[in-house]
């Protein structure tokens, strides 16, 4: 443990934990090779430093061991925007204390904010990257409702469900936790840049890898450990049966967190995974209130006071009866003007009602111009 003084500048994480972060990025290549077997990768990541080195470094073992012994904290590239925090610090999320979770995190958005966010109950939102409009809307409204009730939402920042979850939390005007699979300096595709910036402004993004470590598949799998360890409830919104999509949920289950799932249509391949989870005994989620029930039943502390009123909710009771009929019809599947016209609504009246509902935020237009209820409850 060479220079303890150097750690002070990095806002908390001790040299030993920073060295772990460095080691992981140095072993990125061999670990990528191991990522073909998910279970083995998780076993490897649970090993202590030296054993990990022995296990995967191969021919580079001697060289890496020498560099490992000489490591000084200031060798690690440092970005002033980021803070690092380890399990020896006070603000480190208690949920990450187990051996399956990483010992340290790099944080964008501030360690203090992360501590505050993880002090509240945390719910992870999981799901497919190729989500349907239904999945996207469900994820968004779940995240919005939960955030508004003082729960912290955590999710990765990949396409589909995860992105919708962050957008929903931002809708409610509070931060979420984005768990990244690569260093925070490189982990964002240009398409997600603006969302990443909004998330780090309101909430935070975390990664166990140094900020310049490029994104690879194993990093994404490793980040699922954090997503599995952080929450008390993990909700799978939409997933098919491919191993990648339900693995994170199984992982969370193994760590003792409650797994819940949003039901989907039985004919849709995109909902097979979630429906299978429900079949296997996962709790059923119809909306934020079901998740809140699960949290309380699990004996969690009362959530913080309401952050804000649920957003985008013109109370549906205030609607004119005509509009409410249309809204219900759209929810029941008459989601195009022509479908409504077939159901007996005059075409121009249908267009007017659809536009009015869109203006009040109760409907949005999705794929192929079909209308979707914004709060599917």
């Amino acid at each position, binding site marked *: 443990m060479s220079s303890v003084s150097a750690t002070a500048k990095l806002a908390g994480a001790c040299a030993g934990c920073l060295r772990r972060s460095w080691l992981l990025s140095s072993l990125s290549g061999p670990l990528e090779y191991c990522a073909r077997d998910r279970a083995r990768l998780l076993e490897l990541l649970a090993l202590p430093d030296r054993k990990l080195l022995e296990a995967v470094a191969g021919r580079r073992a001697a060289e890496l061991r020498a560099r490992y012994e000489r490591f000084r904290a200031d060798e690690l590239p440092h970005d002033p925007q980021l803070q690092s925090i380890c399990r020896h610090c006070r603000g480190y999320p208690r949920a990450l204390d187990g051996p399956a979770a990483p010992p340290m995190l790099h944080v964008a958005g501030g360690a203090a904010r992360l501590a505050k966010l993880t002090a509240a109950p945390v719910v992870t939102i999981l799901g497919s990257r190729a989500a349907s409009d239904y999945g996207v809307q469900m994820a968004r409204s779940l995240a919005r409702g939960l955030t508004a009730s003082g729960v912290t939402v955590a999710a990765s920042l990949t396409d589909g469900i995860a*992105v919708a979850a962050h957008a929903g939390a931002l809708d409610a005007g509070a931060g979420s936790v984005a768990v990244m699979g690569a260093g925070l300096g490189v982990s964002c595709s240009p398409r997600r840049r603006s*969302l990443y910036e909004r998330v780090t402004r309101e909430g935070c993004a975390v990664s166990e890898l140094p900020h310049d470590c490029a994104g690879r598949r194993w990093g994404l799998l490793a980040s699922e450990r954090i997503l599995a360890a952080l929450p008390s409830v993990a909700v799978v919104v939409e997933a098919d049966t491919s191993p990648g999509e339900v693995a994170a949920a199984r992982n969370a289950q193994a760590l003792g967190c409650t797994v819940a799932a949003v039901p989907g249509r039985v004919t849709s391949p995109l909902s097979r995974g979630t429906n299978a989870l429900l079949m296997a005994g996962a709790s059923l989620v119809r909306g934020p209130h079901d998740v809140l029930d699960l949290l309380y039943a699990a004996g969690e502390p009362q959530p913080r006071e309401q952050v804000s009123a649920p957003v985008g909710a013109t109370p549906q009771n205030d609607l004119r009866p005509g509009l409410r009929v249309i809204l219900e019809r759209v929810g029941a599947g008459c989601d195009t003007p022509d479908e409504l016209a077939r159901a007996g609504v005059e075409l121009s009246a249908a267009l007017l009602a659809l536009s009015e509902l*869109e203006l009040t935020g109760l409907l949005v237009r999705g794929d192929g111009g079909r209308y979707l209820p914004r709060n599917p409850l």
Partner: protein
Amino acid sequence: MLARAHAFTIDGLQTRHVSVEVDVRAGLPAFAIVGLADTAVREARERIQAAILNSGYEFPARRITANLAPGDVRKAGAGLDLALACAVLAASGQLPCDELERVALFGELGLDGTVRPAHGALAVAHAARRAGMRALALAPACAREAMLIDGLEVPVVEHLHSAARVLSGGCGDALLESPAGAARKRIALDEPVGSVAGGDLSEVHGQHHAVKAIVIAAAGAHNALLSGAPGTGKTMLAQRITSILPPLSRAEAVEVTRIHSLTGVRIDALAMSRPFRAPHHSITPAGLVGGATRGSIGEIVLAHNGVLFLDELSEFSRPTLEALRQPLEDGRIAIARARHSAVYPARFALIAATNPCPCGFAGEGDRCSCSEAEMARYRRRLSGPMLDRIDLLADLHLEARERRATALMTSAEACDQVARARELQAVRLASEGVTVNSRMDGRMLGRYVKLDERSERMLRSARAAGLLSARGEHRVLRVARTIADLDASRRVRACDLGAALALRPDANVAGNRAA
């Protein structure tokens, strides 16, 4: 001895007056043509010599110099043959000179002295009248085209002999009306120029929303995008727009016929219906807007005063679509190349059709297998500025055959509605120099689009909800005005604005997914 004849050459859409001066003097026998002539004109020497000799005249065995003035305009095509031959005859004293000053000549010569038709007779006749010519002599095949211009005599000349007779004060040949010619005339009257065969709106079953959108697009000359899965009837619907557009006005018809006469289409009468152009998506930018070769006219110019239909919009190359931006905005296309520059009129309504995603089935239950990234890439093929010029978007959905509704209306009914709506627009906008709602700018919108109380409220809440950009608001107001015109309503009511909002084109093409 010197003689001068008058002819015309076509440069893009402009017709240029060319005075053909021929000087015959003593010297070694030679025939030189000067004055920026292209290959076809320079080859005229051989044709003219043979035609004169074969018609029984004498070709002067002296030094002949022909000058085509003005010298800085490039002369193209074989239409100058007749004028050159007559000027040679006049300069060698075989014809009187005075009629040459008043009768323009236009046609290509055969080696036996027969006169062949050349492209663009209508445009030439138009120019001849403006240049103060008394008459324009040309081949029988294109005479009918030239006769569409009032105030110009059109003596028909079948042979160099007939031209000589006309120039000596005689009359032209009789124009025989062949049965084939009569049939052709009727076709030209009935059929839209360059059309894909139309069809009636009553053949479109179901898809009422999209049919209504097409009627709105026809009524206000709005640019429309039809989006839907394969087999929903986008192309079928778009092709039927020709059957509901109002006929051309006289001035528009002359414009359209002039343009089409330049492409070499045989024309016997003024075009009565609006052009409908549907180029394949492999078209190049030059093919679409017009190219570097002189007189190569782009599809958008041929669609002037009519409809340009781009099927499979996302398959067009990016530069091709971007080339549409200026014409969509200005209603004209300015092409500048190394050797020439030209401005063509190109005021057309764009109707486009596209699939919502690469596999084509987004929004059709679980059939779509595209990832979000693929969808985003697909949407990016249509640039924002391009979509910004599209006024309305109609989504078509697959309908089960047994649940399909009947047709919304027949073409005749729709055509009637459209004609009445256009009339209202023309009266309202008479003092502004535009005739259709889609051409209203922001100032005119403020002046002519009056919202009632409820629609005013709706517009305010749309602004507040962030659904409308400034430009988007203008588009919605234009479309709403047209919808109200179709109902002959003086004010824009909530239902008009609601329909216009439901047809506004940003939501799903631009992508409204979570982030």
